């Protein structure tokens, strides 16, 4: 409120929606405090159970609508893992499915007005990206031992170029979790912030608010797409990294 006076009217606090707050009362946020993060992640778990457990309770040969959605999600991720990581990657299908389902629900739940988007936080996406990075790296070394390092030694290139390429490959390997996490978090945050900006305009413009409202509608549709695509991108990149760990010899 104070800042509104200072800047002469329009000051849209786009970041307020991303605040992590305790659910009950005020005070410091300890690691165990139930916060809005807890609430919305809990809702994501509930949605997962509703879709994938309650929805498939009938185990029907001819599926109900919810069951076919659950089967579509299953088939979508299963095929993705099989195509990208290969058949031996299917062992890790439940992990990738868990990540995908969580991100999809977090993204879509974040589109509800007033909701808190858990995947718009670096802490969340970086934790998942690091888990994938460390898991895949450990898996690569366990499966292939030191020969996992041949991932960085590109035998298809001329011998003189290989050391240079190896340096580039190593750098890009370690940049993976950064891009992996910031891509998701940035997309989520930016979309929500832009919507907030247009909503602020709508509040100030009076009758002219028609334009920002239409723009919000358009951006909302775009965000709907982005919510799914980013979950897909996160999952498919996980599959790609998994393939590198399973088959490091190009």
């Amino acid at each position, binding site marked *: 409120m*104070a800042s509104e006076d200072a800047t002469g009217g329009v000051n849209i606090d786009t970041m307020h929606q991303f605040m992590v707050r305790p659910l009950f009362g005020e005070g410091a946020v300890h690691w165990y405090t139930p*916060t809005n*993060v807890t609430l919305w992640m*809990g809702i994501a778990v509930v949605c997962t159970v509703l879709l*994938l457990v309650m929805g498939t309770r009938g185990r029907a*040969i001819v599926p109900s609508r919810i069951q076919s959605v659950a089967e579509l999600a299953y088939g979508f991720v299963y095929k993705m893992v099989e195509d990208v990581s290969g058949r031996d990657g299917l062992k890790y299908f*439940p992990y990738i499915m868990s990540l995908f389902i969580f991100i999809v629900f977090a993204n879509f739940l974040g589109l509800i007005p007033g909701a808190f988007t858990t995947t718009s936080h670096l802490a*969340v996406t970086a934790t998942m990206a690091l888990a994938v990075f460390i898991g895949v790296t450990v898996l690569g070394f366990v499966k292939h031992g030191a020969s996992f390092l041949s991932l960085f030694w590109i035998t298809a290139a001329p011998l003189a170029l290989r050391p240079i390429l190896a340096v580039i490959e190593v750098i890009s390997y370690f940049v993976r979790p950064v891009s992996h996490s910031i891509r998701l978090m940035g997309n989520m945050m930016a979309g929500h912030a832009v919507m907030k900006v247009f909503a602020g305009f709508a509040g100030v413009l009076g009758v002219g608010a028609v334009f920002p409202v239409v723009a919000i509608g358009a951006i909302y549709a775009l965000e709907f797409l982005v919510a799914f695509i980013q979950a897909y991108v996160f999952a498919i990149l996980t599959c790609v990294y998994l393939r590198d760990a399973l088959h490091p010899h190009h």
Partner: protein
Amino acid sequence: MATELETAEAAGHAAEAVGMPQLDFSTYPNQIFWLVVTLFAIYFVLSRIALPRIGAVLAERQGTISNDIAAAEELKLRAQEAERAYEKALADARAEAQRIVAETKAEIKADLDAATAKADAEIAARSAEAEKQIAEIRAGALESVSEVARATAADVIAAMGFRAESGAVEAAVDGKLKG
């Protein structure tokens, strides 16, 4: 003026304090803790209940579909077999009918031939008899002619006032008749 600057400064500080909530590291342990709890919950639900169930349903559906296709294939084969049997029966019946027709035809022909032969024989016998009668009649006629001729010749000779020996007249008439 001073107050305005102060408030602006305060606002700036507030904004700085808020900044990007994403970079407020004090909330990181909280988020990471709840994220780990959430992911374990989802993983547990998926790996224990949801994924095996959906996988089983999909496999079962696939099995049902391939079973149905196999059953349809078998039924089709059986239908083809039945059709072949039907066609064979039809061909058999046709052959049988042709055989019966040929047999009957042959029988009728034999009967007919026999009847014709019999009729021919009868006709031949009758015509032979008729010829014999005609020959008899002709012979009788010839005899009468020579008799009449002799009598006439004798009468003519008598009428002319001659007497002729009966033998000579007869010989002369016979000679004329033969010539």
